[in-house]
């Protein structure tokens, strides 16, 4: 499809013309602005057409494992766009932004209750930035205790962000293998835990969609050792109203508001991050904190131990409005979300178990991992592309790395039984096609643009449009 740069049209003039030039020294002035003008009708057609080349939750079942692609209630969009929020300048003094501070305060309060943590920071923009903040806090905490701890323990099933974050903060990652039941191997963990371990970073349920069965023992060993327990809460959609990560022994955890609390994923963001900590780490959270004084919300930047600041202002505030709205909609019924998310995953897992290799045959949490290794190498990518032909988005594939030809499927609670039945039927059909007409699957998708050449993209880099003049 044509790029937006390839139109030559007249300007719609949203802004009155300003003929008068600016009075700046020539050496500071721009000589040439290589943009084009496109009229509004063409802009509408161009981006509407592009939107139609995209699958979203609104148009297609989107069982992308680890991403919690649940329905995004539209009313929350309206609420975030209320003028009192969307037009509010971030430098507005707290006295004139009481509603905004109350949103942050109430969301923190609800998240504390759901996770059992004692304090939250909503400054991070996404889960990865929460991890970075968490590891920075751990680093400062141990530095102040004059303890030299250089290692972070991470299971081999973990998201890549976990070791990437550890490395950013100059910690060494100790990778623990997964045992036959899909848990972090407790014997290997025992060998690894020692006085140099700062943090034990665990995703629970883990990325295999399984509850960590040795968590209680791991927690005891970590505590005895003086290490901090960090929970990657990407999979919190399994635990809402059922079990609190603080009760499981975690000292810190992050939530992805765009996953569990249904703020739209927006094609890859904005996300929303929330880092929760136990009270002994509260003073390390970024400033400003919000406190309540005489029924007024005020900013508090006077925190000596704080690691500092990780956002230009207060985080992705518009996302916080949506997350609070979502939480208020469910209120005390929130456990239904996780119960049905777990039911949907287990139901679909049972429908597919006979057809695929099952690396860990246990009851799953809100997602599960199956393997297409029995259908030959590269069959997972072929199945994923063929799924698109049947009108579904593909699951997460080739992750976790420890499962060969992995398909990681997370249906979420907002999908009906009919959709799950249909998805299972489609996967069974594709398996049949793989046997009867393998070329059909290998050359898929057939209903969308053809399979795209990623090798060519990386070898012959074309990362931008170039104007002809230059």
């Amino acid at each position, binding site marked *: 499809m044509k790029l937006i740069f390839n139109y030559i049209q007249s300007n719609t003039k949203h802004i009155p013309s300003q003929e008068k030039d600016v009075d700046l020294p020539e050496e500071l002035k721009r000589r040439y602005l290589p943009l084009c003008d496109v009229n509004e009708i063409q802009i509408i057609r161009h981006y509407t057409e592009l939107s139609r080349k995209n699958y979203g939750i609104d148009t297609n079942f989107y069982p992308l494992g680890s991403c919690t692609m649940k329905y995004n209630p539209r009313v929350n969009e309206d609420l975030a766009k209320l003028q009192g929020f969307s037009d509010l300048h971030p430098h507005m003094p707290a006295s004139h932004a009481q509603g905004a501070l109350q949103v942050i305060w109430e969301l923190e309060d609800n998240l504390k209750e759901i996770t059992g943590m004692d304090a939250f920071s909503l400054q991070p923009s996404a889960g990865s930035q929460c991890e970075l903040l968490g590891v920075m806090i751990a680093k400062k905490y141990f530095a102040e205790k004059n303890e030299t701890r250089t290692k972070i323990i991470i299971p081999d099933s973990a998201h*890549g962000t976990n070791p990437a974050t550890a490395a950013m903060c100059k910690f060494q990652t100790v990778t623990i293998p997964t045992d036959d039941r899909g848990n972090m191997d407790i014997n290997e963990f025992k060998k690894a835990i020692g006085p140099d371990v700062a943090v034990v970073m665990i995703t629970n349920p883990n990325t295999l969609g399984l509850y960590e069965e040795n968590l209680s023992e791991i927690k005891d060993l970590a505590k005895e050792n003086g290490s901090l327990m960090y929970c990657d809460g990407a999979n919190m959609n399994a635990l809402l109203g059922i079990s609190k990560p603080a009760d499981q022994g975690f000292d810190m955890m992050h939530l992805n508001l765009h996953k569990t609390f249904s703020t739209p994923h927006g094609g890859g*963001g904005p996300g929303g991050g929330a880092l929760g900590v136990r009270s002994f780490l509260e003073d390390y959270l970024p400033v400003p904190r919000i406190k309540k004084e005489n029924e007024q919300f005020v900013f508090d930047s006077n925190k000596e131990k704080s690691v500092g600041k990780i956002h230009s202002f207060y985080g992705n505030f518009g996302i916080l409005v949506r997350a609070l709205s979502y939480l208020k909609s469910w209120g005390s019924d929130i456990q239904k979300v996780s119960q049905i998310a777990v039911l949907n995953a287990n139901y679909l897992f049972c429908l597919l178990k006979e057809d695929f290799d099952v690396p860990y045959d246990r009851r799953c949490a809100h997602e599960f991992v199956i393997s297409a290794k029995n259908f030959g190498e590269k069959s997972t990518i072929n199945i994923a592309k063929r799924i698109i032909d049947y009108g579904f988005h593909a699951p997460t594939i080739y992750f976790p790395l420890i499962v060969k030809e992995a398909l990681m499927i997370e249906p979420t609670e907002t999908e009906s039984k009919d959709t799950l039945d249909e998805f299972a039927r489609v996967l069974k059909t594709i398996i049949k096609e793989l046997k009867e007409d393998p070329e059909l699957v290998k050359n898929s998708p057939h209903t969308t643009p053809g399979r795209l050449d990623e090798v060519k993209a990386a070898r012959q880099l*074309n990362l931008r449009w170039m104007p002809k003049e230059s």
Partner: protein
Amino acid sequence: MNFIPHTKEDISKMLSVVGCSTLDELVSEFKPKLSELKIDNPLSEIELVSYITSLSEKNSAMKYFVGGGSYDHYIPSVINHLVSRGEFLTSYTPYQPEASQGVLQVLYEFQSFICLLTGMDVSNASLYDGASALAEAALLSSAHTKRKDVFVDDGLNPEYLKVLQTYCDGTELTITNTIDKNTACVISQTPDFYGNIKNPQGLIDMAHQNNALFINCISDPTSLAILKTPGEFGADVVVGEGQAFGIPKSFGGPYLGFIAVKQFLTKKLPGRIVGMTMDNQGNEGFVLTLQAREQFIRRERATSNITTNQTLLALTATIYLALLGKSGLQNVARASYHRAHLLHEKLRKNGFDSINTNPFYNEFLVKSPKPSEKIIADLMECDIFGGIDVGDDKLLVCCTEKNSLQDIDSYISAVSK
């Protein structure tokens, strides 16, 4: 509310397939089981709208003469209509390019726009916000030069400096006040926090003489419509905040971090990058590319840990730039410039001292003849948020094309009471 489509019959049928008799039994493995959840009762949509609206109304509505990292530019109506389309809004990172050509082409256009505006060679598909984009640029410089010192020029947004300091502490970099053979990068903001447009050439030369990278940070990128590009000056990295491109102020987020580099740093870029390629039928298409840099492949050897970024805001900025086009963006910049200079002149005539040592764009610093708290309070009485108090009775004032001549007159009459 209830966003679960299941009937009771569905649930019992599904439970029997799973081999459980109740939902509680299904989740019995998740321990320790919580005893009670102290959360308010669920709200229906009508109750929710009423409640959240009441919170929004506790915030004051003002006319803004304030920037400092968030700018009150006009947002054309079309943007919200297009950005709200569910196909964009409810999709995720384009891992399956065949089902994501829409978002991928948008990001390719975004990368192109950022390069065209900054005069740089390559842009990524977005970072979180201006401050963390700057911090990522410092990390990139350290990885590229294998050095650990970061030099920051005067006039960097103080909030950005705090974020940079936090990242430096966590990643073991040091902010120093000299440029030498240990310097990984030299950071300078244009215009700087106080509005000054400084010629960066001297700093760029000093950086390059020491084999350090020069990072130019942009706070209001509408300024790029009239200012010589950082690329042309010789910057190696340009980062900044894209909020000015059609994104609501929204109490500080979600905003749009951007980063663009010269060719030789392409493989050091953090985050997602979209590239053009071909499909198996010979048609042009787009994919995420250079993924070998990223955390999900390289894990502890990744260039950054960033995953989810700000795609929907990159879409917003792309549509904004397409809508305004060349003449629209120039009009925004010229109007912002002229309104700011008009207000500046009127303030001088009313006893305010001009503090800027350099030319300014749409933001300037004045010293107030009265205590700045009083000036700000007087303006607030007239529903005008008139400036950022930077101490010592100095006010940082900003104008955009939205500040009308009447607004400027109201401002002057409020401060000359």
